């Protein structure tokens, strides 16, 4: 077994699942001849054919809406939104239709489908190729929202999403695609949706995060351990909805200090829900106020390198400093 990067893990998993089950089809912009703008489906058109690898018109609402129809008639569609920033025209189809189908039919119909969307910034994507969209969707009953941070989790969560009887929004952080490598267990590797993972054990404070921020936090935690002998535990949420409250609370109760880190702009982001959960359930286990570290409340990321850097890393070692402050606060 050799290390693979995150985008390859997604590609390999999609390939294996499509080869195993002909109910699966891929549809989206540029997924066919181009193989996807991130090459996730490179070679799929030749192997699986036009009926299963569908280059759609440039119409996000139809990509999701047509996928819903397919799901209602015995297929398992995997809809790709080329960039998460472009998903907004499909909001109604995702929220009013896919996520509500089971509830509004009293359990008769479901929408077994996956919506994949590359999200997040730090790759010079500017205002419309950098967005974090998870908070809009994690608020919606009937929809599952996941964001893996490692190749193994990408493979395992994608496989579970494909087999889930309900719609799953599968968010892939673009900066992770080729920057993050790791081992992917061979064979039918699955990870449960709704389960967080403790990716670094620690005793002094808990950092709850997800997506690419997991890697930034791991880096800061290593350095702070070496420099100051501060032991940071890191919880990778992995699944925004449903949220694994127990794993988060268990960690916070152990360390008595909690910090939530997310790339999305801070206000009304996923960090608010996580912080509120900790405040409601573990307030008296805490030795310090909960800290949120989110992006500034500006529209996504500006383009110029200096401005983008301000968004992702607003001051030198800001995570390092925030962790140290909380550990000693």
């Amino acid at each position: 077994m050799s290390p693979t990067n995150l985008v390859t893990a997604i590609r390999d998993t999609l390939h294996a699942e499509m080869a195993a089950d002909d109910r699966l089809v891929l549809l989206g912009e540029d997924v066919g001849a181009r193989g996807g703008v991130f090459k996730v489906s490179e070679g799929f058109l030749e192997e699986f054919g036009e009926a299963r690898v569908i280059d759609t018109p440039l119409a996000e609402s139809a990509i999701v809406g047509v996928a819903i129809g397919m799901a209602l008639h015995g297929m398992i569609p995997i809809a790709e939104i080329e960039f998460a920033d472009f998903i907004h025209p499909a909001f109604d189809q995702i929220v009013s239709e896919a996520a509500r189908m089971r509830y509004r039919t009293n359990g008769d119909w479901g929408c077994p489908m996956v919506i994949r969307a590359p999200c997040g910034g730090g790759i010079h994507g500017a205002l419309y190729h950098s967005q974090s969209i998870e908070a809009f969707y994690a608020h919606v009953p009937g929809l599952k929202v996941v964001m893996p941070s490692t190749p193994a989790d990408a493979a395992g969560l994608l496989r579970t999403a494909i087999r889930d009887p309900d719609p799953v929004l599968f968010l892939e952080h673009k900066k992770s695609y080729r920057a993050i490598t790791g081992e992917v267990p061979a064979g039918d590797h699955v990870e449960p949706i709704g389960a967080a993972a403790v990716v670094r054990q620690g005793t002094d404070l808990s950092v709850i995060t997800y997506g690419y921020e997991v890697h930034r936090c791991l880096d800061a935690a290593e350095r702070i351990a070496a420099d100051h002998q501060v032991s940071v535990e890191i919880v990778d949420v992995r699944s925004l909805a449903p949220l694994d409250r127990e794993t988060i609370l268990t960690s916070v109760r152990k360390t008595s200090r909690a910090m939530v880190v997310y790339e999305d702009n801070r206000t009304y982001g996923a960090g608010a829900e996580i912080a509120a959960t900790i405040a409601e359930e573990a307030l008296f286990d805490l030795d310090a106020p909960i800290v949120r570290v989110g992006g500034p409340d500006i529209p996504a990321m500006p383009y110029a390198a200096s401005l983008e850097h301000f968004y992702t890393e607003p001051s030198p070692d800001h995570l390092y400093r925030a962790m140290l402050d909380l550990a000693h606060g």
Partner: protein
Amino acid sequence: MSAQVTEAPHETLGLTPEDLLRMHRHMLMARLIDEASLRQNRMGRAPFVVPVSGHEGCQIGTASALDPDTDVWVPYYRDLGVVLVAGLTPLEIFLGVFSKADDPASGGRQMPSHWGSKRLRIISHSSPIATQVPHAVGIAYAMRYRGEDAVVGSWFGEGATSEGDWHEGLNFAAIHALPVIFVCENNEYAISVRQDKQMAVRDVSSRAVGYGMPGVVVDGSDVLACYREMRTARRRAIAGEGPTLIECKTYRYLPHTSDDDDKSYRSREEVDQHKHDDPIDRFTTYLVDHGVLDHEHVQATRDELKAQVDEAITTAWAAPDPDPATALRHVFAEDPGA
């Protein structure tokens, strides 16, 4: 009226007297349920109902050309006539009107007339307009992918044709030559907004050329003409020749819903004028003229159907309400073992 009025002798359409009588009964039943539903609303027993009167010709005409054993129905909220043809019973309809636990569409979760039945392959829809059109297209894609000899019927009003989802759906369907038939029930008003404030074209069907599919106009009060166009479209779809846009020129005799006051946007004279072209009266006359029916039989049928409606109302009203404890269920699939 721009519609081409076509007398469609039923023999050339291959319709037997039994077929005609069934269509006639569906039209009468739709009208009787409609009138009874509005009475239930005025009695305070149904907070919200959606009238259909005036649309029976285009709904029953188009729906009767589909195969209820194979085809899939994607109606919108005014399609009482379509779902009767699909097989919903008066009792099932009133279970929805009274939002009872056994309402087949949603168990009382959605407003009435938000049809759905897994048993009958009637696809659930929501209240935002035209969102169901891409679903119809996706179902048609799945039908062809799975090698089914079947089509999808997709119904909507002319207001829906302003929505992006409508455009995106038709475009997608035409690109892939999918077995789906788009039926526009153009009743000139989207609630209160007249067609000339909705679009700059006279005929919705003229938009079909922009998608690369045939578009036809038909007199929505002529049930046999509607049947004929749907039958032709179904044959094209089954033959792999792709979708058709059928525009039925029709008119709604009653307000948009029980909460609407149509006197604020159209005159009584205009409404009365359209009632002279009642699709049920026209079809009754046709059947009498062709010796399929006599006037005594019409009255007897009406009485028989009225009794069915009354019985359905009584039974549905007495049926159990949804248990509040179930309100949290079915957000996600439930573990069969749970």
